[in-house]
């Protein structure tokens, strides 16, 4: 067997723990009320276009983009808009939500609800992009970056390689794995659509070796559909394989420069779940109103683990209750994976487009160990996939040395958590490096703004 490829710097090997891998996707019932957040994507929050008292159907536009990098939000249910106002998100911070009382399940007529696979890809790429934008599709790999922006590289840059991220390198999570098994053909059509939009570049679907069934299923789907130029590439298991920069390194053996976008090395990275959303948007005209989520955890009995198809806006607590309640041994509730997910401070918060799991971790698995002193073992530096030296960054942060932090590339940190994961002394490296990164980014932005202002002033004078 050929040697498997992976990214070249750092990485860690946490235990797989994909306990819910054999749970087929089930469809959740509708709750009495949903709360649709206006901040479900990276960028500016969406602006509500409905009013209290309006009746909406599944797929009705609730809000429109609040800026260039922003996205449409559609109603996931049919019913009446009850209120528009602040509601606490999973971090407990108030965010504008639209509250809808659910009545029946009536869909907009424009949506094609048949399950039949539609392989006829529209010819007009501009129309495809427009459809993707109008359906509010965002990246479902974690960052929720609006997909139409990413598929339309600025400044005439061309994509050399479209990388589809099926790595799902986070332990526990199985939603991407399940859709790759159950909806492989739809995903591949979605991939083909994106490939077409980007001008037919080389296309690689990267899947980690610990999911051989998914590799087989995707391979078969590509073969059955008869697409050329789409390659399924098995990757060596290593976290954070699914990180955009790491995946580009693994597949293309190229590295994105500091502060640059993937397109600068000719790469566009999209998640498999995004490919599915693109398929549904373009072929079925179905907006992004549902996604797959895993209910899992080390303290959850195997029979209570599930993969669910949920509608956005469902409260997490509703899903947790439906799945049998929060286990008593759970010490921490996490939305997302155990490495990069967010701890849930408020279970009443509503699901969003990017929700991928409710993860219950026991105290033994998740409680942080007592912090002790650095023994300079260098494990954090060995683990860092960006090649940074976390021990040094932390020291510079504590000394308030912003210049040193910038020189040592604190701004390159991708917050993957490898440093803190591997630190034998339980030093909260990432907690502090994230702060340092924020400060350095502030300095860089201020400098860029000042440079821009100076350039404009010079231009004025030249006139």
């Amino acid at each position, binding site marked *: 067997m050929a040697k498997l490829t992976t990214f070249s710097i750092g990485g860690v090997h946490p235990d797989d723990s994909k306990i819910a891998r054999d749970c087929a996707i089930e469809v959740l019932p509708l709750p009495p009320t949903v709360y649709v957040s206006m901040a479900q994507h990276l960028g500016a929050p969406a602006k509500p276009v409905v009013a209290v008292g309006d009746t909406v159907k599944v797929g009705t536009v609730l809000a429109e983009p609040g800026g260039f990098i922003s996205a449409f939000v559609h109603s996931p249910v049919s019913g009446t808009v009850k209120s528009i106002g602040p509601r606490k998100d999973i*971090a407990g911070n108030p965010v504008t939500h639209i509250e809808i009382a659910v009545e029946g399940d009536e869909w907009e007529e424009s949506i094609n609800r048949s399950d039949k696979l539609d392989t006829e890809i529209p010819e007009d790429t501009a129309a495809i992009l427009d459809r993707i934008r109008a359906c509010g599709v965002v990246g479902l790999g974690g960052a929720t970056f609006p997909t139409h922006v990413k598929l339309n590289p600025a400044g005439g840059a061309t994509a050399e390689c479209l990388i589809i991220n099926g790595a799902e390198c986070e332990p526990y999570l199985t939603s991407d794995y399940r859709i790759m098994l159950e909806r492989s053909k739809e995903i591949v059509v979605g991939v083909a659509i994106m490939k077409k939009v980007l001008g037919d570049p080389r296309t690689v679907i990267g899947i980690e070796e610990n999911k051989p069934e998914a590799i087989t299923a995707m391979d078969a789907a590509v073969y059955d559909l008869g697409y050329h130029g789409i390659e399924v590439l098995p990757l060596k298991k290593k976290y954070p394989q699914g990180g955009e920069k790491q995946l580009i390194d693994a597949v293309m053996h190229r590295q994105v420069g500091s502060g640059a976008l993937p397109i600068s090395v000719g790469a566009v990275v999209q998640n498999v779940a995004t490919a599915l959303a693109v398929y549904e948007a373009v072929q079925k005209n179905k907006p992004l109103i549902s996604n797959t989520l895993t209910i899992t955890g080390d303290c959850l009995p195997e029979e209570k683990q599930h993969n669910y198809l949920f509608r956005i806006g469902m409260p997490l607590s509703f899903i947790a209750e439906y799945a049998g309640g929060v286990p008593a041994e759970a010490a921490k509730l996490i939305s997302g994976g155990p490495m990069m997910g967010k*701890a849930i401070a408020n279970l009443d918060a509503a699901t969003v487009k990017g929700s991928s799991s409710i993860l219950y971790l026991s105290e033994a698995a998740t409680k*942080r160990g007592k912090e002790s002193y650095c023994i300079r073992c260098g494990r954090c530096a060995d683990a860092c996939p960006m090649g940074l030296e976390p021990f040094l960054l932390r020291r510079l942060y504590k000394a308030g040395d912003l210049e040193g932090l910038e020189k040592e590339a604190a701004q390159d940190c991708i917050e993957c958590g490898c440093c803190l994961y591997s630190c034998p002394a339980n030093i*909260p490296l990432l*907690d*502090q490096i*994230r702060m340092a990164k924020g400060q350095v980014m502030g300095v860089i932005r201020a400098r860029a703004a000042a440079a821009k202002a100076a350039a404009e002033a010079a231009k004025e004078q030249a006139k």
Partner: protein
Amino acid sequence: MTTTFLWTIGILAGLGLLLSLVLFFIAKKFRVEEDPRIDEIEKVMPGANCGGCGFAGCRAFADAAVKAPNLDNHYCPVGGDEVMKKVAGILGFEAQAKAPMVAVVRCNGSCEKRPTTNIYDGVQSCKVKAALYAGDTGCSFGCLGCGDCVAACQFGAISMDPATGLPVVDESKCTACGACVKACPKSVIELRNKGPRGMRVYVSCINKDKGAVARKACKAACIGCLKCTKVCPHEAIVVENNLAYIDFAKCKLCRKCVLECPTGAIHDVNFPKPLPPKAAPAPKPAAAPAVEVKKEESNG
């Protein structure tokens, strides 16, 4: 024997002479001419290098003050009027008197009034905690209790009260340098006019949630009920975004609002006579003035 002895002495003495000459010429060559008044000003400064004046340290302040056309933008909050009079004397300017300020903690959501809803397991830093989420209580505005202000204070004037989980300012040590104000990610701490004999009245809450939400999160929250604005004879209190704020310039220290506040969010400090306990059988709000009395004692 003797020659070794002499050689040793000779070489060492020669080396010493040579190096001292090198040092002498280096000192001469790299000597920086400075305004002698900078040294003079630095001498009268408190020497804490706290940065409260907006400059990097006392010497930087002195340097800036010497170059400045007047002292309008240069004030040492630590040294206060006394030091500024001396500085003005050195530079030949008029000194401008400023009212003394003090850091005030605008949160009184103690552990018992503001129960926790989750357990924070990250690094003990308010900055990190604030960036992560709303906090381990139901209130998303108030003090996070990790003590960034304590670490920021160079004068040892702030300490965490383990009973309440809130910072306490020692007024005798506070120099109003503002380091804690900058350190607090929730903007809980405000620099406030110290008031006559230290007496002042202020709202010890910054919760902008609606009354019911605020009250659910914290029994001592300002609920924006407007009772204080109605009772205030001097129109010193404004309620904006469900939160009351007392304008020091207008407040005449009558303390009617303190009696009226249903949650005990309005605090009065350093008054010689504490207010009588409230008639209403509400034991918890009455506890607030008691705390203040203790603070007063520590100042004396």
